């Protein structure tokens, strides 16, 4: 088990963003965490890499109990856990090459030639060969995300966290990122948690899908199971409708026929 959260609670601004979240992520799988904006997906991700301390509940990362982990423990774990940020969060005072090399230079006692080789390999993997000397400000949104991924994989992590990897990108660029995430998982066997509200992306890359709703996991299963789910909250998300589907028109207990009737003829 790569990540295990049990009863995770987090309050932000007086609101329980996570209200007893239970979630497990297995070795080598790609878990897509779905949820509406502000549902606490990114907040959960920040717990997994120690940017937010655990308020209540327990959390295991890479098989280690990190519920009360010290900064020292986190800094050790973070060499094996990496995060791709929503806005890429590239250091704009540095070149692309230095962005990718920063952690390598900081941690690895390797000769500079070797570091440059690994930077080139990381950038090559995301399809950005020979961009080392560019400035982040001169890159397009999709390229920035790819540099963010290159920076995250430079230390060869075992667990990779993506925060909204396709948000703000056009469909074609989104597809490039999606393929990259899948290829990365296939070639390196890295475990991934992808936070998104992009259903297409979810179907494409997910081994398993989890839906976060009101601070808890509402659904967990394969993308196929998600499509077939009868849960009105899940259906609402899958179909992308803001209509309240939780009260079937037929009345009584929500059953297959009841929730079906709520959608009307497709």
């Amino acid at each position: 088990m790569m990540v295990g959260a049990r009863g995770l609670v987090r309050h932000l601004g007086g609101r329980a963003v996570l209200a007893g979240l239970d979630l497990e992520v297995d070795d080598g799988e790609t878990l897509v965490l779905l949820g509406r904006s502000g549902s606490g997906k990114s907040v959960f991700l920040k717990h997994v890499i120690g940017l937010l301390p655990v308020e209540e509940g327990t959390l295991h990362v890479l098989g280690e109990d990190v519920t009360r982990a010290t900064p020292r423990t986190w800094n050790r774990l973070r060499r094996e856990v990496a995060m791709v940020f929503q806005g890429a969060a590239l250091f704009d005072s540095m070149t692309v090459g230095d962005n990718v090399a920063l952690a390598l230079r900081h941690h690895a006692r390797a000769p500079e030639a070797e570091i440059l080789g690994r930077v080139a390999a990381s950038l090559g993997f995301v399809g950005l060969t020979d961009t080392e000397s560019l400035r982040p400000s001169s890159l397009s949104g999709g390229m920035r995300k790819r540099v963010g991924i290159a920076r995250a994989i430079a230390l060869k992590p075992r667990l990779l966290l993506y925060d909204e990897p396709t948000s703000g990108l056009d469909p074609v660029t989104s597809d490039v990122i999606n393929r990259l995430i899948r290829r990365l998982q296939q070639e390196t066997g890295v475990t991934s948690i992808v936070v998104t509200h992009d259903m297409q992306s979810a179907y494409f890359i997910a081994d398993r899908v989890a839906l976060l709703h009101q601070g808890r996991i509402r659904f967990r299963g394969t993308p196929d199971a998600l499509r077939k789910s009868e849960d009105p909250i899940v259906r609402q998300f899958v179909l992308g409708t803001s209509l309240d589907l939780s009260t079937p028109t037929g009345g009584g207990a929500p059953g297959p026929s009841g929730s079906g009737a709520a959608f009307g003829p497709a």
Partner: protein
Amino acid sequence: MGEPSDDPRARPPAPPTERAAEALAAVMARLHAAFAEEGFQYEPGAATAAIGRTVLRFFEDTGRVFGLLLATLRGLVALPRYMGEVLTQMFGLGVGSLPLVAIVAVFTGAVTAVQAAYQLEGFLPLRYVGSMVTKFILIELGPVLTALVVGGRVGAAIAAELGTMRVTEQIDALETLAIPPVRYLVLPRFLAATLMLPVVTVFADLIAILGGFAVAYLVYEQSAHTYAEAVRHAFLSRDLFSGLIKSTFFGASIGLMGTFYGFRAEGGAEGVGKAATQAVVASCVLVLTLDYVLANLLFRATL
């Protein structure tokens, strides 16, 4: 006034304290209505609560600043690893500030010379202008004005840079790469400000004294020799170093305030602007407060 007690048949006459309370309540009600008409929300006790909150926040922030200072000083153990960053920051902060500091210093020296001559006239010979300029510049004007100017320039720059990094998640990104932001970002800026402000101040002192000479030479027609003699007459290395000790503390304040408010920025461009403003205001206040405290410690006259 006192409508409630107008009709004596309605109630027996109330005791004076109660009447006063009723009158007060009536006034408050009217005030409330007046505020509401103007579109303000008036809540009784809101002002007191606001003062209380401000005081609490002040103490809370003071605690946080000391926390950051301690974390930064603890980072000194890993200094060799961040030496490159420290040198980069020292260069940008020191060399980059020189032009501005030089302009301020030259005019400070010049105006001090004019004022000194005005003060001396009728009491002492004007050849002591150089002495007065030297005294004023070394112990007070050089360190303080340099700190205020550099505080404005560097404090705002540090806060804006770190604030932007905060709101674009670059500081979080550093953390996820297992690079401690306090050591990588705060320590170099804090050290650079602490070490370079005295260096810049030495230049400012020199340029200010030369600025004073320009006035003495051009306006009061003193020879270089006269001015130099006057400077030498007043120059005490103790004054110079006391001034530089002040500068060291001022530099530390500027670095600390810039990084503190930068780290705390939130909410996009507006938050970054606010952080820069707060950093400059706080470092100015701190410089002036510390100046008073240190002046008492360093220059207290023995009675």
